[in-house]
């Protein structure tokens, strides 16, 4: 072989490498998967918000359509393909009010607002480190970890720096923030009853520091939008659901060491605690007179996972009526029970499994008999539900 041929050969190789071009990623269009028989009630379907693991920008929205029996993945990107960086990072709550669907995207510091039927984007409300959302008379109330920073202590060595949280008031027609009320540290879930907002203060960021966890529920008067009082409950509060008799159901996370997670019932009218439940409460769903509670936790004391909780509490009698609503042994397959919802008409129970949080989780459907009807892969960390339909409480 001649010298020139060798040069030619080398040049060809180099050109082949140079000529290669990188392909762009394609946006996710909707994936529709048949799941089961269609069902016709006043509930048209439900949205399932997948949180997406932190810093992955993987929050996604799925929809289950009862009239077709089909599960639709990635309906947000399908309806809004031109939104830069998609839905965002860590979807923490979802709610429907009027014609709009609101998604609280925690680490993207925003509430994403879309049309509840077409999922077309309407706008966003910028609220830093936003957590949960509830609606009342034309306004949305959003809890956020971001409030004023407080310095406590006399000298720099002894100083404790911490940050208070806030509840933001948002006009649902203009999507403008109209007011802000400072509450305790790291406020989480909130609920509204009798003109008052109840919001749980966790203090989760101060875990291990001198001031420690928060242990109160802040009460905000809607009229004045001022914090009225703080009700002491237990450390590191999380969930907050009000039943139709004005009993506030509050869950605590405990401290993962000696103090376990618990559930508390507080009567907002009599203004006193009515009962404490020794139930590990992770996530809750209120349906009529039934409170559904699920959890599975790691314990530092036993250095292992406790058995999962799948309990139903009768909110009228204040009794645990069912310690495990899953009757066919499926609970043994659920690795990390995460989200829960109950169809307001058929009473089918939906439980999500977050698995290891770095892959697609499962959505399970159980009948009232506690037997699994079907399961399907959802997105990354499926977690928060909103039912869609006319004449139903869509929250």
């Amino acid at each position: 072989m001649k010298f020139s041929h060798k040069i030619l050969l080398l040049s060809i190789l180099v050109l082949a490498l140079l000529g290669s071009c990188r392909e762009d990623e394609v946006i996710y269009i909707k994936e529709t998967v048949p799941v089961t028989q269609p069902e016709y009630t006043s509930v048209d379907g439900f949205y399932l918000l997948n949180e997406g693991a932190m810093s992955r920008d993987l929050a996604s929205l799925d929809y289950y359509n009862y009239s077709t029996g089909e599960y639709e993945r990635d309906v947000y990107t399908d309806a809004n393909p031109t939104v830069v960086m998609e839905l965002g990072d860590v979807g923490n709550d979802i709610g429907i009010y009027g014609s709009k669907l609101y998604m609280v995207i925690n680490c993207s510091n925003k509430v994403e607002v879309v049309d509840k039927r077409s999922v077309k984007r309407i706008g966003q409300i910028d609220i830093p480190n936003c957590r949960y959302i509830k609606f009342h008379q034309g306004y949305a109330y959003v809890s956020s970890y971001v409030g004023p920073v407080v310095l406590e202590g006399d000298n720099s060595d002894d100083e404790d720096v911490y940050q208070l949280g806030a509840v933001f008031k948002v006009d649902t027609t203009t999507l403008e923030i109209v007011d802000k009320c400072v509450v305790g540290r790291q406020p989480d879930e909130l609920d509204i009853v009798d003109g008052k907002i109840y919001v749980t203060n966790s203090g989760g960021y101060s875990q291990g520091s001198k001031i420690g966890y928060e242990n109160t529920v802040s009460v905000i008067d809607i009229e004045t939008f001022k914090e009225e009082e703080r009700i002491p409950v237990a450390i590191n509060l999380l969930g907050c659901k009000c039943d139709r008799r004005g009993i506030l159901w509050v869950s605590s996370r405990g401290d993962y060491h000696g103090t376990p997670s618990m559930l508390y019932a507080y009567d907002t009218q009599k203004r006193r605690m009515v009962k404490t439940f020794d139930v590990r409460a992770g996530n809750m769903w209120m349906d009529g007179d039934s409170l559904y509670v699920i959890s599975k936790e790691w314990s530092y004391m036993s250095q292992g996972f406790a058995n999962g909780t799948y309990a139903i509490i009768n909110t009228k009698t204040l009794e645990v009526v069912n310690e495990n609503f899953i009757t066919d042994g499926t609970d043994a397959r659920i690795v990390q029970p995460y989200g829960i919802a109950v169809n307001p008409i058929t009473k089918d129970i939906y439980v999500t499994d977050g698995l290891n949080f770095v892959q697609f989780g499962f959505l399970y459907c159980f009948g009232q008999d506690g037997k699994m009807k079907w399961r399907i892969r959802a997105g990354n960390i499926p977690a928060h539900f909103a039912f869609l339909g006319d004449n139903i409480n869509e929250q």
Partner: protein
Amino acid sequence: MLKRIAMSLLAIVACCLCLEAQEVSSVPQIKEIDTLQYLENVIVYGRKPYAEVIPAQTLGGKKLEGLNSHSIADAIRYFSGVQVKDYGGVGGIKTIDIRSMGTNHLGVFYDGIQLGNAQNGQIDLGRFSLDNIEEISLYNGQKSEIFQPARDYGSAGTVYIKTRRPKFSGEKNNNFNVTMRTGSFGLANPSLRWEHRFSRNVSMSLNAEYTYATGQYHFRYRKKFSDGTIAWDTTAVRKNGDVQALRVEGAVFGAIEDGKWNAKFYYYDSERGIPGAIVNNVWMNSQRQWDRNFFAQGSWQKRLSEKFEMMVNAKYARDFMHYHNPDTTLMLVDNKFWQDEIYISSANKYTILPDWDVNLSVDYKWNYLNSTLTNFSYPQRHTALVALATARTWHRFKCQASLLYTMIDDRYKTIYQGQTLARHSKWMHKFTPAVFMNYQPIQRYDFYLRAFYKRIFRMPTFNDLFYTDMGNANLRPEYANQFDLGFWYQRLREDGFFTGLKFTADAYYNTITDKIIAVPSGRGQYRWTMMNIGKVRIMGVDVTARATMHLARDFNLDINLSYTYQKARDYTDPEDTGFGGTYKGQIAYIPWHSGSVVGRATWRDLDVNYSFIYVGERYSSSCNERSYHQPPWYTHDLSASYTFTLGSTKFKVAAEVNNLFNQYYDVIINYPMPGRNYKLILKFDF
């Protein structure tokens, strides 16, 4: 695309071999292990040391200098079987993963002694600049030379970094070097080196380097519709990637009768921004990190008799890290960590027969971690290592076997609300073996078959075990088993078109069991715990080829190719199958195909270097679905340098263009890498 690259690589290798085969060589065989590589400054004393059974992949000398690399991590990308996890920019973390076994299975040795990080087990090779480096070697398994400390037997793969040894020509007793580097990202990077000869046997070097960079660069993210039109396209500036760092390093080298010694210190002080992940609505982060690393180490080695040789190593290291998050939209964090390490080792080699050596090494290591975290465990780890190894040569067959005994005692406290509730001591010990073999079937040809087996583990790090509210003190070690079978072939000639040709290929099978992974531990994403539940099986092929060519008078060309195929599959959960499942999925960030091409042309004092790196498609999770998909990336880098002498001063001017075709890509998802960037280097030696 993948196939095309793979085919091209194979084609050129095949062509090189064919071309070579046509020209029958009558040049006498050269028995050097690897004369192709620049082994310029090996200090040979007494008898020739026992050669390694399986040679390393090595980058050194002018070849290393020619690569467009700022850090050691950038240079290691050119080795086969290696993946670099790069968070982007001048100050971003860069860690190395060999043959998909995970960063924690890699041992990094700096001038013969391992760099430790008991806190998280990861060595950020992005922090080690190439300014003072002479040679980098990568060994799969371990360095298969038995005369080494016990700790050298203790990793699944090892990287040896060798700093510059002073060299003096003629009567000169002082060498000075001044280097200035500048370029994109607001880089200002001056360095100074002074080498001094005290006597014929003792010399020293002192080296200081300062790095400043704003770390700002443009990045671009976009997605398209399936018909190819653009769905969205955005360009932004990477912020909070600034870094400033000072490195001071000094060493004394001595030669004694039948032996040598050295002592050195290393100091690194830096402040950097942590640019963080880019997600929807968040384009900037404000976390900061400060690091101060200091170590002092020494080594002494001597042939005490015809049959007995001894080496003693010792080290003290102290590392400080301060992490601060001032961003009020996130959890305010202000944590400080201090680590101490004391290490002492003795290696003793005895030659039973001229072709049969045994070695006994005994090491002791102590690690301590202190922190401002509340309820912290203040862990200490005592490690004793004993390695017994033997190397034997029978004609053209070489074999080495070693057995490592590891004994570990972890001591820690349970502290709650400021009270020490309990003190713990956890003790464990393990035996782990390794066998290396090399066979030359025909004496006339430099063709060698090689194989190795090694079983080793990595200890859970202090973070794995004790990180407040996340660690799991019950963790067991994570095991790596490696089987490797390969060959290498080389042809060297004094004249002709091809002056050298080398080809290596290895097939391997690795398993990782009891892999330590983070598992969600309750409600919300803030709660995790570590568990020994992972299982990974890795099948791979590493191929390297090198050809040195004499094109015309004073015109030489050196081409290196490397290619890696890896099937690294997650066997953790056999239930997790079907759509979205992880069972048998390719593990996170491991591409099936990857490779590099480096071409270096020299004409008199002009040196032109071209390099290409290809990393094929991969997923950011072992769930191999579209949400986790990452497209391939590849970069072309070009550099040229010219050396000239004025009086007694040697000047070198070099210019680099990196990512020539301005390709935007991520190595780690949502951590954008820089596009095209430039660097200018001026060096004076006098």
